[in-house]
C-alpha cells in the first residue's frame, strides 16, 4: 500500500462532513418534533400510541446515532490533521538529525580501508 495524506483535502472533506452532520442533526430534530406531534395526536388511543412510539422513537434515535457516529469519525480525522500540523516540526527535526547522522561516509575508510579508486 502506498501511503499518502493530502492535508488540505482531508481538511476539506472533514469540514464538509461536519456541515453535513450539522444539517443531519437539524433534520433529526425536525423528525423528533414531527414524531412528538403525531404521538400527541394519538394520545387518546393508547395501544396505537404505544406501538407508534416504539417504532418512531427507535428511528429518531437511529438518526441521532448517525450524527454521533459521524462526529466520531470527524473527530478521528481531526486528530489526524491536528497531529499532522503540530507534529510536523518534530518530524522535520528528527528527519534533519537523521540526515546529519547519515550525511557522513557510509563506507568508513578507517575501518574498511580506502575505497578502491
Amino acid at each position: 500500500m502506498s501511503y499518502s495524506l493530502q492535508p488540505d483535502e482531508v481538511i476539506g472533506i472533514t469540514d464538509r462532513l461536519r456541515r453535513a452532520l450539522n444539517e443531519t442533526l437539524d433534520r433529526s430534530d425536525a423528525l423528533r418534533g414531527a414524531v412528538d406531534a403525531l404521538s400527541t395526536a394519538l394520545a387518546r388511543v393508547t395501544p396505537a400510541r404505544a406501538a407508534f412510539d416504539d417504532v418512531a422513537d427507535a428511528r429518531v434515535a437511529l438518526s441521532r446515532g448517525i450524527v454521533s457516529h459521524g462526529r466520531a469519525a470527524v473527530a478521528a480525522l481531526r486528530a489526524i490533521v491536528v497531529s499532522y500540523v503540530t507534529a510536523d516540526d518534530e518530524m522535520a527535526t528528527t528527519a534533519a538529525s537523521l540526515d546529519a547522522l547519515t550525511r557522513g561516509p557510509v563506507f568508513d575508510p578507517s575501518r574498511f580501508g580506502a575505497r578502491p579508486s
Partner: protein
Amino acid sequence: MSIDVAAIPVAPADSEELRRCARELRQASAPLRLSAENILFSWGMLPEVYRAPESVDLQDAMTLVGPAAVEILTGLQLACAAVETLADELDAVTRERTALVARIESRCLPGLRALPVADDPLSRQLAADARDDAEAGFRRECAALVDRWDAAVDACAARLRAIPDVPWTLSSTLRADEHDPIAESTSILDAAALPLLARLADHDGAAATRLLAAHPEWVAVLRRARPETIARWWNSLTPTTAAALTATIPAVIGNLDGVAIAARIAANRSRVTARIEELRRQRLEAQLTADPLTARFRSPSAQADSRLRAIDAEIAYFEAVQDGRKQLYAWDPDHGSLIEMSGDPAQATAALFVVPGTNTRAESFFGDESISRFADWQTSTAHGSVVSFTVMTGPMPQLVDIPTGGGPQFSTQALQRAPEYAHFVQGVGAAQPDLWMMSYEHSYAGAVGSAAEAYGGIVDARFLAATVGAVGPYTPVPETRYFAAQAPDDINRYYAGLRLADLGFDVPPESFPGVRIVDSGLPGLNPRNLIIGGPAEIVGDSIDHHNALMSDDERINGKVLNSVSSLLTTKGKTT
C-alpha cells in the same frame, strides 16, 4: 342511559389531525435520505486523499449510514401509512355516528309529537317497554361505535407492531451519544491553520520562507481557515512580524482572506516586479517571432503582433500596480484569481464588490477597456466614501468553451466560485468590520453571489445586473436587500428560469422574493429589426444591452451607475 345526542360517544382521535401529523412526519423524514447521501458522498472522497493502513477502518466507518437512512425512512413511512389507515377507519365509524345523530335528532324535532298514551296500566307498560327497547337499541348502537373504533385502534397498533425492529447491527453501531453536544460542532479549518500560522510567525517570521518551501501544501490549509480567524491572528502580530511576513511570503499574505487590506495591497505590489521582468523576457522572444525576417518562417506576423500587444497591455497593468496607480487585493495566477481594488479603505464607509460574469479573464483587467471601469467610476463618484473591488476569484465561463462542453449555460463554475466569493466577502468584512457591503453582480456572476450566500457570503445589498439568477431551490437572505436591473430585451431573458440538472438557472432575479426592480434606462427591442435587421440584429442588440450594464459611460448606463452610487451613499435606502 337516555336517548340523547350528547350521550353518543365521539371518535377517540381527530382523523384530520392524524393525517396532518402523518403528512408532516413524511415530509420531515424524507430529507434524511439526502443527508445520508451527502455524508456518504463526502466520505467517499476520503480514500483519494488519505491512504495508510489505519485509514481503511476509517474509510469503512460510514458504510451503515445508507442502510440506516433507508431503515428510518421505511419504518416511518409504514408507521405513517398505519396511522393514515386508522384515520380512514375512524372516519368510516364517524360517518355511522353522524347517521345515528341524525336519526336521534329527527326523533326530537320540535314539530313531532309522541303519540298519546292511553291512561291505563297496560298502555303505560307497553309504552315503557317500547322506550326501554329504544334505549337498549341506542345503547347497542353506541357500544357498536365504540367497538368499531377500538377495533380500528387495535388494528392500527397491530400494523405498527408488525413493522420490523431496527436491526441490531444498526442500533448497536449507530448509537446516539448522550453527551453529544446539541450545538453545531466546531470547524476543523481553524484548528488546522492556527498551528501553522503560529509557526510561520515564530521569531518574527524568520523561518516562514523556509517552512513554506519545505511544505508547499500548507498554503491550501491556510486558505481554508475562516477569515475572521485569520483577522484575529493578523491583528495579534507585532508590526515587525506583520511587516516581515508581508515581505517574505507575499504570495501567501497577498491572497489570505482576513489579512488587513493595506498589507495585502503591499504584498501583491511587491510581487509584480518579478512578473514584469518575466513579461519583458517574453516580449523579447515575441519580438523575435514578430521580426519580419523571421516571421515568415515561424508564425504569421499578425498573430505575433497580437501577442506583443497583449504582453504590452499586461506590462502596463503591472507597472500601474508597481507605481500605485492600481491596487491588487488578490492575485493568484495559478488559480486564476485577480481582485483589483480602487479607493482608500481607511476612509471608506462602504464597499462595493463588482463581480463581472461570462468571459471575464485576467486579460479583462488589462488595457484601456478594463473590466474595472464600473468600480472605478463608483469610487471616483463617491469622493472617498467608497472602496470598490472588481472581483474574479477564479476561472469564469467563456463563450469560446461552448464547443468543447463548457460555457455559461452550466452552473458548475458558479458553484465552484461560490465558496471562494463567500471567503472574499468574509475577508473584507473581517478585515474592516465597519464597512457597509454591497455587491454588483453582472450576468453569470449573479449565480455565484446567490450560491455564495449558503457559504456565508452575506452582503448588505445585492444588485443583480442582468444576471442569470440562481440555481433553485433558492431562499433570499433576510438581512440582505435585493435590487435587479436589465434591459427589456436582455439576452438572458430568452432562457431565464429554465434548468435541467446543471444546465441553466431556474430562479430568475426578478422572481427573488422582495427584489426591487430598478429601471435600467436601456432600450428594448428595436421594432425596425423585426422588419429589416432580422434575428442577427435582434440578438446583437440583446448582447449589447446586456454588456451595457458593465459600462462606465453615463450616456449608456447612467441610470444604473447612479442607482448604485445612490445605494452606496445612502447605505441601501434609496436608488
